[in-house]
């Protein structure tokens, strides 16, 4: 449909065509760009318009702050950031850090990849935890604060209706109800009971023969009811926690993730897109799992070379394909820079299954066997659905079968991305189990 063409034209703007818009193109990050957050590159074409000088415009904030106090950069989503109400209502963005992302995936797939601590780090003094009480507001764990507030509210508010009724038990007075309530772990205040008792009309006292009868007859207000009755949840300063990297640790779990990609002529835009969609969540997951994560990006056609992430997903060369070139390079890089004694290693490769004849079986498989890694994966993308008979992935499956150290997946459309990610991460947590068993033996 038309939108696909609009997307293609947008990607070309300021590049292959429409040089006149080049000066209005910005390559920025989606959302926040804090150090410990993931940056999502995005290209924005911002057409000029009559606008105010941004700094001179100032803005509105909320909270306790005295005149003169600095307020920091206006947050994203501030009035000048977003067009107010551009074409229909759309909103509700918030960001996620890799740790949350990993937790989410663990929950979703029921994974339990236990990161191994490898290199030993000296213990530092101090009592820092990963949540601290102050920090930049963007790292505030609001969800936690809200839930704490809610819990406190539920915990401190006592069930007045219920306790008032309890005072109507035959022979009960403030003191007896107080003791009974404590025994039932019901929030209560003696002072309140005394006041409430005086207000109970004489005729209603003694409505219940005993506490047992009372409990039989009267239901406590359920938590859900109590929550609903609340008009607001008290958010307290003391519940504020800011995410902070953990400082004290004996062993640090470090991971190096190698991304290999075939950049030969046959890897067109759709294939590249699928690779990016598959690799990115994997990278994040591992970033979230390990305390320290480093990435190595290797592009190859018949030769292999290292690149930066920014270039990695976009490169396209003209040449043919020789996958072993990449593994040779990766082998050397890992040995020199990321010794297996200190580093967890993941090697993910992607391509469309093409390789020069016999390269897979003669060269790639032996290299993969030789390397010490937590997991090898190969992501095959064939969005055109061509039925090539002898592909690289078939060679890998032949050589490794179900050994568990190698995950081979295929992604032919966007819908299959998450399945592929799941399969690879399952293999990753399986192989961490295997390793543990080996160690135990």
């Amino acid at each position, binding site marked *: 449909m038309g939108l696909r*063409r*609009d*997307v293609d*034209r*947008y*990607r*070309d703007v300021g590049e292959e065509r*429409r040089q*006149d818009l080049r000066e209005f193109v910005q390559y920025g990050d*989606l959302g926040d760009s804090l150090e410990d957050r993931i940056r*999502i590159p*995005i*290209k*924005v*074409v911002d057409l000029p*318009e*009559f*606008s*105010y*000088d*941004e700094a*001179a*415009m*100032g*803005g*509105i*904030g909320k909270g306790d702050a*005295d*005149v*003169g*106090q600095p*307020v*920091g950069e206006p*947050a994203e*989503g*501030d*009035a000048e950031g977003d067009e*107010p*109400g551009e*074409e*229909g*209502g*759309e*909103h*509700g*963005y*918030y*960001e996620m850090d890799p740790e949350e992302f990993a937790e*989410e*995936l663990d*929950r*979703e*797939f029921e994974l339990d990849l236990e990161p191994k601590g490898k290199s030993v780090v000296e213990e530092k003094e101090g009592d820092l935890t990963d949540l601290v009480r102050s920090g930049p507001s963007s790292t505030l764990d609001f969800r936690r604060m*809200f839930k704490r507030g*809610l819990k406190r509210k539920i915990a401190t508010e006592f069930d007045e209706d219920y306790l008032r009724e309890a005072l109507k038990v035959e022979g009960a007075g403030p003191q007896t109800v107080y003791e009974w309530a404590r025994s039932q772990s019901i929030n209560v205040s003696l002072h309140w009971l005394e006041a409430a008792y005086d207000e109970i009309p004489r005729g209603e006292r003694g409505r219940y023969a005993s506490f047992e009868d009372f409990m039989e007859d009267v239901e406590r207000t359920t938590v859900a009811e109590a929550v609903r009755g609340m008009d*607001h*949840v008290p958010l307290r300063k003391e519940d504020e926690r800011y995410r902070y990297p953990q400082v004290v640790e004996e062993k640090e779990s470090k991971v190096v993730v190698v991304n290999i990609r075939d950049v030969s002529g046959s890897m067109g835009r759709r294939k590249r897109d699928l690779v990016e*969609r598959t690799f990115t969540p994997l990278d994040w997951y591992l970033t979230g799992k390990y305390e320290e994560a480093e990435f190595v990006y290797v592009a190859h056609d018949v030769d292999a070379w290292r690149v930066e992430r920014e270039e990695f997903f976009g490169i396209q060369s003209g040449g043919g394909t020789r996958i072993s070139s990449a593994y040779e390079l990766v082998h050397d890089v890992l040995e020199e820079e990321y010794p297996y004694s200190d580093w967890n290693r993941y090697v993910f490769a992607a391509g469309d299954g093409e390789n020069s004849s016999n390269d897979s079986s003669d060269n790639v498989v032996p290299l993969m066997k030789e390397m010490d890694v937590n997991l090898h994966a190969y992501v095959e993308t064939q969005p055109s659905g061509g039925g090539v008979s002898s592909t690289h992935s078939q060679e890998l499956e032949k050589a490794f079968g179900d050994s568990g150290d190698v995950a081979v997946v295929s992604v032919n459309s966007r*819908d299959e991305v*998450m399945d592929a990610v799941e399969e690879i991460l399952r293999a990753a947590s399986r192989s961490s189990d295997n390793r543990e068993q080996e160690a135990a033996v």
Partner: protein
Amino acid sequence: MKGYLRRTPGTRADVHREASELEEVVEEARALAEKLGLQPYPVKYWVVDYDDVNEAVALGGFQERYPHWRWGMEYERQSKVDRYTPARIYELVVNDDPCHAYLQVTNDAAVQKAVITHVEAHADSFRNNDWFQRFTGGFDAAATLARHASTIESYCRRGDVDREEVERWIDTVISLEDNIDQYSALEDPADSGSDSEAEELRRQVEEMELSDEVRDEVFTEEWLERQDVDDDLESVPATPEKDLLGFLAEHGMAYDEDSGRAVEMEDWQRDIIRMLRREAYYFAPQKMTKVMNEGWAAYWESTMMAAEAFAEDDEFLDYADHQAKVLSSDGLNPYSLGKELWEYVENQANRREVTTKLLRVEGATPDNLHDKVALDEVEEKLEPRHPLSSLSSETLDDLEELPDGLVDHGNLQRARQGDVDADRHPWKLLTYEGLAERHYSLTRLQNKGFLRDVTASELEDRYRYMADVDVYASAGEALEDVDRTAGWRAMKDVRATHNDVTFIDEYLTEEFVDRHGYFAYEHSEATGQYHVSSRGFEDVKKKLLLHFTNFGKPTVKVHGSNYDNAGELLLVHHYNGVPLDLEEAEATLERVHRLWGRAINLKTVTRNVEESVMKMAKRRGKEPDTAEKGLMLRYDGSEHTWRELDEEEYEELLDPGLDYDTRPEDWLN
């Protein structure tokens, strides 16, 4: 708003199942909304998977839009947000009759319900707000936008027009899409399809078969162009014109790069300006009522979801979580600002009703009201009567005791027979008046003290114009007579006539700003940072108005079309204390030039700090003095020039009554 991975793509079966499950929810939500006095347009809900939502978002909720890369950009951005962050579009509603709204198949039940209640309230303001009616009433949006799409597509396919040329033309027009006169009624620019008089003259000159010498001496191109100018544009516009797009659609010319001259626009070019201008007017009310509209939806969503138990017990925490996220983002948040303002409108109207009644108690005056009536106790007496706030199947009998008009006796009967579930849908047992009392604002916990805080001057103002006093023998009697629907009625009146600017202007009072703790901030030249400039409500209001007046953009009007007696366009920036981004302005002038064909001039005021002053200020950590200075920018098709204006040329722009700069005199010194 659950995590990213809840989104396995919905299969057709999922979609169907979800749709039928939601049908009852939608029906109930509509019934509840109507019971609360809302009158929404019919809403058509679409249950869709995530990719459909991304597409819908990209196209502003519509199925078909004209071909342009901007939709592709929006789609790409939305897909990345969707793919890489847990953030999701949780509501997308299109203003049309009927409205269309999208529900993601993978949202959990609580979120679906929240979206539906939210959408119903939007559909109510689309239908009942005058600003929407002005540009969109009777406008078949989906059909019109689809027609624009196919017309523009057909231009792209024409043999004599290059697709890229059309795209470039659209870009040019889009740069000016906020330059319309959204505060006036929409008029179609007069059709100026006929040739200009200069063209006619040119033909006549050609027909006269003059010798080249004579032609070159007398009837030169310059002369011909001047004739055109003199005849056509001497008096255009009669008064400064804010609708720049409309003006250019009527009087604009294209620029021929080869000859460097203005030429008549092609039909398709003029047509595209008109269509995009029409679309800009259609989308304007949504931009003009953002705070009101989102606040309105948030208010009713929370009334329905939380206070009326539309969320089931097990959904409630999900809902609370969801709402907290929406309302808690940093900075200026139209949802929470709007919701707070609506609550303020409600409280204020309710307080007015109560205090007016109390002032009619025998012997009561503004001076003695606080002594005569303990306002704290009044709050207690205003508590909804039993069993309004504890409705359930247990309290059906008690309902019978209530005075007439509060109980929906038909539904009460049905509840007794078991046809209405009083525990799940307690609201069904009440009438509008009954619900108004059940949700009465002044007795809610967070509004405690609001009544007592009434100021002496508010009471004075009320009392001065009161005709009948001494009506009630006692405060109790007066309170019996309080109309509980006053708050909601006031809200509905405001919703019918206001836009964000008038809404904020009227309701952002000192009391409001003090209660909610807003402040204004400004940029400091000396520190390069933003600092709090004021906590005063006048300043906060000013800053908010700056952000919401005219889409938060500077006002630029056409003041003349024959500037310098050479057919040049004169634009004037109506300065309000905040200068233009000059770089953007220059780039925009290039766009205007393409639509005018001749040179463009822009008169503006800028704030200038001389370098030496700046250096000194930085060294001393003091804010430098800035001087306002008039500038005339000019673009003639090949280069930008500018000159400083003499004082008398721009002093009219320095309106002392209009200044959005909130920096105090001795700020940061």
